[in-house]
């Protein structure tokens, strides 16, 4: 009997060792909506650069959602089957994403939202930037530059996407403060540089010499407008042009004084979400390791991981910070 008890103790001890070894290495999955564009590439690269991933505490797997809500839901199912410890989620669709979150929640896996929103109250936390703020900021910059009077055009993202809706809301808020400014045209170019270029070429024809400002809801489209203005033989610097995101080409154009960009900090959104994912996977026994918390300080406090929502501040790209930002893109 004594021998049996000893054997049992030994056996549990043997079993316990690999069990603790397994919990030491966390399996965290990241599900971004798609990896074809620059912003999500910077976001994914930032996850790989997180201290906990680099030192091997976390085993990170990034799933490419291929811009398809169904693909993302399937990826959630496979992460549940493979017993991931936490999931970082960037949904393509605000409503369709809720199914995936539910799946993970049912399996007891915490889900941290990042960058884009999902209509679900089952998220453990969300790290993103408020698009209404950036929409307001960029429109304000354009309107200040033209002295709160004159004509502007707005180039919008795909109608119905959360970023388009919220950035437009911000655009309109700034426009309401300048009742003398007329919006001559307002159309979507689906985040695309080539589409925005065509649109702007046609608008310059329809309103010769009348457009003073261009509010592009992202950098790509602002850049398309710049190309159209150049092609029409106009001086880009006589226009007030702004975009959002801080993509590399946008930074370059900002440096050349052709436009203003509002940087969306993909690194902070990714690494902040990673810290929260580890925090929830370890059931609160964790101090954040990314230096983004120190960078933003009181503008985005960690608050012991207790907040439901973390708002990464937007940074206007200026002559002072543009070189440092470009240096991070090598």
């Amino acid at each position, binding site marked *: 009997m004594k021998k049996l008890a000893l054997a049992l103790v030994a056996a549990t001890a043997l079993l316990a060792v690999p069990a603790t070894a397994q919990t030491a290495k966390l399996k965290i999955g990241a599900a971004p909506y798609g*990896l*074809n*564009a*620059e912003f999500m*590439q910077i976001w994914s690269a930032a996850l790989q650069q997180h201290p906990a991933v680099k030192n091997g505490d976390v085993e990170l797997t990034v799933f490419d959602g291929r811009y398809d809500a169904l693909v993302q839901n399937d990826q959630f199912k496979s992460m549940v089957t493979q017993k991931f410890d936490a999931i970082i989620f960037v949904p393509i669709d605000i409503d369709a994403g809720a199914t995936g979150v539910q799946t993970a929640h049912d399996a007891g896996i915490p889900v941290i939202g990042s960058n884009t929103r999902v209509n679900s109250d089952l998220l453990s936390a969300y790290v993103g930037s408020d698009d209404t703020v950036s929409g307001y900021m960029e429109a304000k910059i354009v309107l200040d530059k033209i002295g709160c009077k004159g004509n502007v055009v707005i180039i919008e993202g795909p109608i119905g996407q959360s970023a388009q809706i919220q950035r437009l809301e911000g655009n309109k808020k700034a426009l309401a403060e300048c009742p003398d400014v007329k919006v001559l*045209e307002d*159309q*979507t170019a689906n985040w*695309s*540089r*080539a589409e925005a*270029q*065509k*649109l702007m*070429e*046609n*608008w310059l*024809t*329809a309103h*010769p010499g009348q457009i003073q400002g261009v509010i592009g809801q992202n950098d790509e489209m602002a*850049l*398309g407008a710049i*190309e159209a203005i*150049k*092609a*029409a033989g106009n001086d880009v610097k006589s226009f007030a042009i702004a975009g959002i995101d801080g993509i*590399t*080409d946008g930074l*370059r154009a900002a440096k050349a004084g052709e436009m203003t960009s509002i940087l969306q900090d993909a690194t902070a959104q990714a690494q902040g979400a990673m810290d929260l994912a580890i925090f929830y996977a370890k059931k609160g026994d964790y101090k954040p390791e990314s230096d983004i918390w120190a960078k933003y300080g009181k503008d985005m406090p960690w608050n012991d991981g207790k907040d439901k929502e973390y708002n990464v501040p937007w940074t206007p790209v200026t002559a002072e910070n543009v070189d440092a930002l470009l240096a991070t*893109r*090598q």
Partner: protein
Amino acid sequence: MVSMSETRSRWFTAEQRRALIQEYGIFLAFLILAVILSVSNEFFLTPGNISNVLLQTSINGVLAVGMTFVILTGGIDLSVGSVVALAGIVSASFATTSSTAAVYGAPYPVVIPLAIGVLVGVACGALSGLIVSYFAVPAFVTTLGMLSAARGLTLIYGGGRPVPALTPEFRWIGTGHVFGIPAPVIILAVIFGLAWWTLTRTRFGRYIYAVGGNAHAAKTSGIDVVRIRFAVYVISAGLAGIAGMLLSARTGSALPQAGIAYELDAIAAVVIGGTSLSGGVGRITGTLIGALIIGVMNNGLDLMGIQSYYQQVLKGALIVGAVMLDQKRSYGA
């Protein structure tokens, strides 16, 4: 079909009128559209806007010319949008001053990136052409595969990032002017002229129609059907290579997500232009008008401030309407 001497000699019968509308309906539709737009918008007929329309039509025009060759043989090329992106980004990497995106030694003299862009297209086309002609895999399947593969290669090659800072010499093909005419328009005109000559004045052109009309008959009369089929995919993708360079030269940066769904507009131009999807019937002039109709429509609706969603609905109606005419021509008369 109505011959010219008959039409001149007396008033048209109802049947002849119908035949005329079917034959020249596309030119008529284009004229009507142009008149409506000139009346409804004061800027439509300005030289600046005409230059804009031609410029905005040039890339789709180049693709549509290549697509006409393929469709005349009864095939289809779904891969051109992806080839646009691949050729655009590979050629740009030889023409950029950006140290991060450049191939070692770039920027090279402008002929090198230009040649490489065409070569990338030709290589894609040669592979598709070989699979379609020699291995007899349906064109739809082959070029669908190429659509996916070329897009993937584009993302691999550029690491998913754009290639910016192209040299002024390279950008000239997209932004330059000759006697006030935009360079892409001249390039389209030259390509169109060569295509028109090839299809109407050469033996190769006649063989293309013969293969599309009846491949079996063409083969028994001694035409090398495999070679003709191979050649049209090389032409189409080669032109897609040129279109890709025009696009990156125009936008100033080669983007990995460039050219998505461009094949659809190219096919639309060919179909609106009256070329039969079953092959053997059609004219390159129709394709040019088809491309112009799409360009004029988008431009006109933009000038009037109408949402682009309506443009898509109208384009859809045009495509189906044109094929309805095509069907009547094949089975009606």
